[in-house]
């Protein structure tokens, strides 16, 4: 794995001046992931419709120092694998050099990945293209205004899962997309967070180095949607890790491994919830059982990954 000194020499592939919000987790995720491609690699980036895409490609400008393609919302995986197929086909035709190496990566939000782009992603993984898919998971449809997705946490407020006398935010648990992707038995799957940069960049490096499909689900907090101050993105990400809400794990050729939270560092889930306005209704008297329920679900999910690590070791 490259050192921070080496990474510091890698040219920025997503440059400043884009229009994402201050404190946006998506741009941090993208810059960290692209460090993992290595300094010299030629990279083609694909993006699903979403905050990242609209904020970095407003004509006549582009914030990308790489070749870039956006197609639509639900098809970033199909599109980037079309690009990868072109690379294979043009190589076979002798129209590009046999030794020419290009990295293909697609970025989609949780709406574009967990929900509307789920089929496209699953198909692309199953076909075995050589590409990396990165989901920047901010837990809702932020670009359209904080609507709930299947990545939205249980009981979180969203504009289509409101809080009122009849409803306490989203009534359903979130989808465990990373495990579902692991069930495709592709060579590399990881879950990471912008709050643990070294872990994320190392995972990106492994993803890019792996022949075949690789997937990384990156927790990328959204100050607007989560209702916290934009200076707190990294802190909130770290709380997600320390409260076990967002376990950092990877699945390499079917072997699961987890970066465990050190026992002395483990925090109760409230520490993650209380800094975010989207969970504030949970702290109203009478809602204690909701937090307890959420804590149980988080513990169960964490335990599931632990067990997978044991089973596949």
């Amino acid at each position, binding site marked *: 794995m490259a050192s921070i000194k080496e990474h510091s020499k890698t040219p920025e592939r997503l440059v400043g001046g884009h229009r994402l919000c201050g404190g946006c987790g998506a741009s941090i995720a993208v810059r960290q992931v692209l460090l993992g491609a290595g300094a010299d690699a*030629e990279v*083609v980036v*694909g993006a699903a419709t979403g905050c990242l*895409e*609209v904020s970095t*490609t*407003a*004509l*006549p400008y*582009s914030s*990308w*120092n*790489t*070749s*870039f*393609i*956006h*197609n*639509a919302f*639900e*098809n970033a995986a*199909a*599109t*980037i*694998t*079309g*690009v*990868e*197929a*072109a*690379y*294979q*086909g*043009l190589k*076979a*035709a002798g*129209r*590009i050099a046999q030794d*020419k190496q*290009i990295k293909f990566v697609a970025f989609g939000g949780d709406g574009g990945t967990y929900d509307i782009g789920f*089929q*496209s992603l*699953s*198909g*692309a993984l*199953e*076909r075995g293209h050589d590409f990396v898919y990165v989901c920047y998971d901010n837990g809702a449809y932020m670009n359209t205004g904080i609507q709930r997705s299947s990545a939205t946490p249980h009981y979180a407020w969203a504009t289509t899962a409101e809080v009122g006398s009849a409803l306490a935010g989203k009534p359903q648990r979130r989808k465990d997309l990373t495990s579902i992707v692991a069930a495709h038995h592709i060579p590399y799957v990881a879950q990471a967070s912008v709050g643990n940069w070294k872990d994320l960049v190392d995972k990106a490096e492994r993803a890019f180095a792996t022949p075949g499909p690789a997937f990384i689900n990156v927790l990328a907090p959204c100050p607007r949607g989560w209702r916290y101050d934009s200076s707190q993105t990294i802190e909130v990400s770290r709380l997600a890790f320390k409260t076990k809400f967002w376990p950092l794990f990877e699945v390499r050729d079917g072997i699961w491994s987890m970066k465990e939270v050190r026992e002395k560092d483990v925090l109760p889930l409230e520490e993650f919830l209380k800094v975010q306005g989207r969970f504030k209704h949970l702290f109203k008297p009478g809602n204690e059982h909701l937090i307890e329920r959420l804590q149980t679900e988080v513990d169960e999910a964490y335990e599931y990954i632990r067990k997978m690590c044991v089973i596949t070791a």
Partner: protein
Amino acid sequence: MAEVTVLAATGNMMVAEAFRQAAPDVIAAYPITPQTAIVENYAKYVAEGRVHTEFVAVESEHSALSACVGASAAGARVVTATSSQGLALMYEELHIAAGMRLPIIMANANRALSAPINIHGDHSDVMGGRDSGWIILFAETAQEAYDNSIIAFRVAEHPAVQLPVMTTLDGFITTHAMERCELLDDGTVEAYVGKRRPQNPLIGGAAPVGHGMFASLGGTYFELKQAQRRAVCGSAPHILTEGQKWAAVCGRDFDFIDSFACDDADYILVVLGSAAGNARVVAKELRAAGIKAGVAKIRVFRPFPASELRDVLQGAKAVGILDRSDSFGAPYAPVGLDVRTALYDLDTRIPTRNYVYGLGGADVTLDAMRQAFSELQSLAAGHLDQGLSYLGTR
């Protein structure tokens, strides 16, 4: 000199051969009746090592065209094939492929749309894409499907065109019926289609490029759409030139409209695709009986050849417009709307009747054609009003 192999083949077989001969770098496709044989045949070429093409066996038609968009933007020569519900599922991508100005060649086996579900031939699927910015060609026969498919590469990839082309053939009638066909040798086709010279490819270019960028409020979106209209309309002379170049190679004529006995005709039926044959048979019959009947078959549907059609129809006393789809709630069916619009610019008003026929593969009989021609005579004589009717329903 071109070597010609005469063979018995279906439209699907001929389209697959045309694709093979054009040597695409990528095919991304999904099975759907009655197109499936195209991708099955192509999968055989791949398995036999006869092509270098990367075969992307996607999980849906939406992903098929999405992958084609990525591959074409990357600089590859790209083909796909679909039909009916598959084309409908691609609707979003039809507009994106055209708006991004990406050459993609897609065969469509024209088929009815649900509901009720029906797998047989009509033009309901294609008409859903007629405003999407694709160049759309209609084939009457397996031979024409082959010729159109080959010409499509030259047109789509032409530096002044840079648009996707849909080359269509009628489901089951043209896709599955075995006909006498002529297949030219690979070298001749290869020499005609040449290699794609991509503009601003994602890979292999000198500098990074951006495809599918964001154009929000303001003039850019609006102006790009104006440029798109110019591009589609402006593709017409290139379609004619490239089509006629192929005509010189293969010895079969090419034009926007295939007119049969229209020069002095009093009564003309306008038709797309496979029904043209029956219309011609009846026109011949009527000619033998001293009635001046003609048939105008539209081969290039988008861009719509309005002025060429006016030239063909201007001397007629009445025109019948055959539509194998409907535009529910519109004053006329799709071809009816276009043909009547074209005729509006003539000084003399030609009365028309619009006939919806053969939906869901319903038989298109000679009697139905006789009825249409007979009604045109009544229309011209003032005994029948203009309007739309369904031809051949019980």
